[in-house]
């Protein structure tokens, strides 16, 4: 049984809280949020201990680990305070507003030998897990080219402002949305190390970008593009897809389907020459409690397993999330240098 606290019970935090609440190996020791709308609801309708000051919560309750799902600009100061008190951390993506801060957090966590995880949940989606397995097997041959697309209906008209419309708070399509795609490419193919072109475009937002297009290169010299647009209402929800071309085949994957083409016979067990299609229902591991996608439960199961010493702390570490932050920073710098 692990003692877990949560800071920030907004849109993302409330989902983590429900999954933690149903988890047999978790005791939720408290929830902290600065909004009285949120704390009033939790106080009146749940049995969680609710705090407006997260420091009070951790000082009183001494949790084994804390989930941090506050707006991105508060990630760094809060996570730092947790690490200072030797508390393991699960923090939402993107990790930090700038890579220097992220580096400091990673160093502290490492020095203190603490467990950490960042909420890039795509890595726990069955189709992307299978894509990782296929790519790592080498059956696509020498990788040549990738392209990533991500679309969704977040900002489809000019509207009232939230933290998502403020660049200095982690708003914008690049930090809030493209981060997922960049992180997934870093994971599936190899860390992106060079940005050869970058365009940030605004359609509806006054001070942040609504779309991002980039030319990128990974550490091992594979080139590719990403196109990300959060102002496309023809998509019902966030939709991410990646295509990877190799000397022996091609793979296209999104959260529901994996399509892979192999040039040669017997590429990898279970697959054949030509096109192969697999769907999420055949690829997703089962979960004990489902809220809105197996991946949200699986990433929490994984973190709890890490805390219990049942799994290595290797997926979605501070280190891998920092790589993603660095690419985001490079994209911004590239754009600024052009101006």
């Amino acid at each position, binding site marked *: 049984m692990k003692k877990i606290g949560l800071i920030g019970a907004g849109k993302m935090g409330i989902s983590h809280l429900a999954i933690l609440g149903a988890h047999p190996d978790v005791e939720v020791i408290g929830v902290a949020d600065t909004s009285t709308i949120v704390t009033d*609801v939790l106080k009146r309708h*749940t049995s969680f201990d609710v705090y407006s000051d997260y420091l009070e919560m951790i000082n009183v309750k001494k949790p084994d680990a804390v989930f941090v799902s506050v707006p991105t600009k508060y990630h760094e100061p809060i996570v730092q305070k947790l690490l200072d008190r030797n508390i393991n951390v699960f923090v939402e993506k993107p990790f930090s507003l700038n890579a220097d801060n992220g580096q400091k957090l990673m160093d502290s966590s490492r020095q203190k030998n603490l467990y950490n995880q960042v909420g890039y949940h795509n890595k726990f989606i069955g189709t992307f897990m299978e894509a990782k397995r296929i790519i790592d097997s080498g059956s696509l041959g020498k990788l040549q080219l990738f392209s990533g697309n991500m679309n969704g209906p977040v900002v489809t008209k000019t509207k009232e402002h939230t933290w998502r419309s403020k660049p200095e708070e982690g708003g914008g399509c690049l930090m809030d949305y493209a981060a997922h795609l960049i992180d997934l490419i870093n994971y599936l193919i190899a860390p992106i190390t060079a940005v050869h072109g970058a365009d940030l475009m605004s359609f509806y937002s006054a001070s942040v970008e609504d779309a991002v297009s980039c030319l990128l290169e990974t550490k091992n010299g594979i080139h590719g593009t990403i196109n990300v647009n959060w102002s496309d209402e023809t998509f*019902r929800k966030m939709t991410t897809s990646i295509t990877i071309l190799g000397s022996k085949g091609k793979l296209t994957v999104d959260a*529901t389907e994996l399509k892979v083409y192999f040039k040669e016979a017997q590429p990898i067990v279970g697959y054949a020459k030509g096109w192969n299609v697999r769907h999420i*229902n055949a690829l997703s591991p089962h979960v004990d*409690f489902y*809220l809105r996608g197996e991946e949200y439960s699986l990433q929490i199961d994984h973190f709890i397993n890490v805390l219990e010493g049942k799994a290595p702390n290797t997926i979605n570490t501070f280190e891998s999330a920092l790589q993603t932050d660095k690419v985001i920073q490079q994209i911004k710098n590239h754009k600024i240098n052009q101006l």
Partner: protein
Amino acid sequence: MNRILFGDNQFFGVNHVSDEKARQQSMRFKEDISILQTIDVAIEEGCNTFMCTTHDRMLNIANLIRNDAEKYDKFQIYPCLPYAHKYANAVTELGIMGTIKHYVPGNFIGSLFKGGYAMVSKDHVKMMELMIDAELKMFKGISTPVIFLQNVITDLLLGLGMKDLLKAFDQYIRRKYNAEPGYITMNMPKLVDMLASQGIYHPIVSSSINYEGFRMSGGISMYEQALKSGRVRAIAMQVFSGGATSAEKALEYVCSLPNVESILFGASSKENIHQTVTLINHYDKKYHYKTA
């Protein structure tokens, strides 16, 4: 409840195993009339109950149905609320207060902003009731004998342990709408336990039930036990979602289970609707299914 319920996912671009298929379907059902035509096919096949989300487009469909009251005399709708994507997108775009301002109807909000935020935090049940009313307004005049809470909300309340709100939903649906409350969930056995703790016995619960155990959280055997116990009036949904199974195998499995009162399915073509209905009737005979 009717044995076979016709669902709406195919109309609104929802497909659990293929985003691509979902997009194709949302193009095919661009016009409201094409949705109604497919509903008509289902009615011809004997499916007189349409279980649907309170999607904005349902208002137009409901209007078409109201305009032809005689033809849809026996027809009934099981609404499923809320249409959660709408609110989730709104919270991202407008924030929590902005969303409340935008969606909670009329004078409640007027008085709210005079009194500041204080009022919102005082009466969540009242706010929920107002939102239920707002969502159900589109079905006025159409028979809605069972009204469902969507799985995202049911399971959120379940995970957070908000038992009192589940109970408040139950009571309000009975009191105000004289209807049976129903629950959609991906965690059926856990939900049945929590409802029982609130004195809600024998609830109508719609959940994934399929041969492969897809989205049957906690495992297929827990589900089979819950069904055997007779503690739940189950609706089987996502019966084909297991993926590997043929329609025959998928439907035979569901029809062979005890206490599955209804089977929910969605399809776009006449052939698929006909095939599904025929197969269910066939296996019902084989397993001696009796109408309640």
